[in-house]
């Protein structure tokens, strides 16, 4: 069991209904994420996992309840950053320019912005590919760039929306391991939305499960396995089965 850390993000009785609809997609969500904590949010299709993430990112307003996110950030950083499932790289920007997209407006000098871009490109192992266009890289590389773009703004919390679901199994495995390495190195909080139970159990310190109509949080437990983890760890598999049962 992970020791509870000081809450960085808190959802207090949060619910959401789509505009024009009187039906709540989810309701009564109460959970928090501590600084540096890695939490996976799991649920079936249509339970509103990605909508939770959008609420946390401030992209949509929750109709009900309250979300407390880090309001103050250090110079040159953003409170949160999103990694999208569809990578969402801007095709008219080079890889470098995509990575630096969130840096303008943070008051950083050109030299500091360049240094930040170099740093994260190095971190994801794509230092040589900064001059390429998005259509010139593979799906796995595009996901890395999406991650680098988010890391470049040094967020307190990284919001990841099924980021590896569109890549092949081998690439997904590699990306998961790379993400763990980066997370352990940068010590930021992660909210990782996925429908893949094994992925959630392998990556996260804590797994939360949403289920029902409207969906509620039905499971919220720490993963009983230390890092580094083995994918075929029996304890991990047993935990994954419990998550599956909760779904």
């Amino acid at each position, binding site marked *: 069991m992970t020791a509870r850390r000081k809450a960085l993000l808190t959802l207090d009785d949060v619910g959401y209904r789509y505009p024009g609809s009187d039906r709540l997609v989810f309701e009564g969500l109460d959970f928090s994420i501590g600084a540096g904590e890695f939490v996976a949010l799991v649920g079936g299709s249509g339970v509103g996992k990605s909508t939770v993430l959008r609420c946390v990112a401030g*992209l949509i307003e929750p109709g009900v309840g309250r979300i407390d996110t880090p309001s103050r950030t250090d110079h040159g950083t953003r409170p949160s950053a*999103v990694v999208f499932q569809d990578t*969402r790289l*801007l095709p008219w*920007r080079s890889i470098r320019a995509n990575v630096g*997209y*969130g840096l303008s*407006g943070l008051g950083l000098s050109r030299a500091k912005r360049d240094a930040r871009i170099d740093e994260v490109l190095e971190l994801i192992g794509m230092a040589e590919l900064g001059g390429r266009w998005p259509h010139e890289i593979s799906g796995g590389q595009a996901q890395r760039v999406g991650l680098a773009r988010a890391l470049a*703004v040094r967020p307190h919390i990284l919001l990841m929306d099924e980021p590896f679901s569109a890549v092949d199994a081998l690439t997904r495995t590699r990306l998961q391991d790379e993400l763990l390495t980066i997370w352990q190195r940068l010590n930021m909080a992660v909210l990782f939305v996925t429908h893949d139970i094994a992925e959630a159990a392998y990556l996260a310190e804590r797994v939360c499960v949403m289920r029902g109509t409207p969906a509620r949080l039905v499971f919220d437990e720490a993963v009983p396995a230390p890092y580094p983890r083995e994918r075929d760890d029996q304890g991990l598999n047993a935990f994954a089965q419990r998550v599956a049962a909760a779904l």
Partner: protein
Amino acid sequence: MVQRPASAHPNALPAPRRAGATRLRRVLLGLLGVAAFIALWKLAYVFNWAPRGTIPDPFVVPAALWREYSGGRLIPAIGSSLVHYVWGLGIGTLLGFGIGLLAASLRVFDDAHYMLARILRPIPPLAWVVFAIAWFQVSHAGAAFVISIGVFWVNYFATASGVRDVDPRYYELARAFGHGGFFKRITSITLPGAAPSILSGVRTGVGQAWMTLIAAELLGVPGMGQEMNSAAGVGAYDAVVVYMLAISLIYTLSDGLFALVENRALRWRP
């Protein structure tokens, strides 16, 4: 299994040689097409397929070119036409782009102007010639005004549809990374996202402007259109062809130049 190398195929040539041969074949066939057209033209001249004297001998066109040039008519006419062209194209492009951008970005503006746009759009640019003469007399400004109308609509529709077609997910990305404000959204997402359509509109306008320009000048504004009209009036149809070829050359140059700009600006496309 033994694989036969690609070059062993009887018809196979190394890729660059094959591409070179295809290009050469295309150029030769293109020249052949031009030669066939000139031959047909010559036949039409010899056998009087049109009222006598209205089809010039294609082989006197070079002499007519020299006559127009040395007579001091060709270059000033081109210069004058270019003045109309640049002003008409510039004003029409800027206004079409600006109003198209507003129409696609601001709902209230779109609602307020869509009916007016539907009323004005079907009116051909040349229908405005009457007002151009009334407001600007027979002047450069009048010709530029008529040209700018045609160019305006092309750019208006290209910009508006390009902006409307920008993937809305990019706007969500902009908000997620602190670029949700109007100005940042327009500069970082809307304009680059709509650039292919906007530039395609500008390029169409580059051609459209020439078509309207000659028609506007036929009414008496100094330029190539007026020279064509004057030459036809004295039966010098060879000179008319000279101005037609001058238009073709200038259009090809301006379109080619713009294609370079477009390719450079859109080099990110696959």
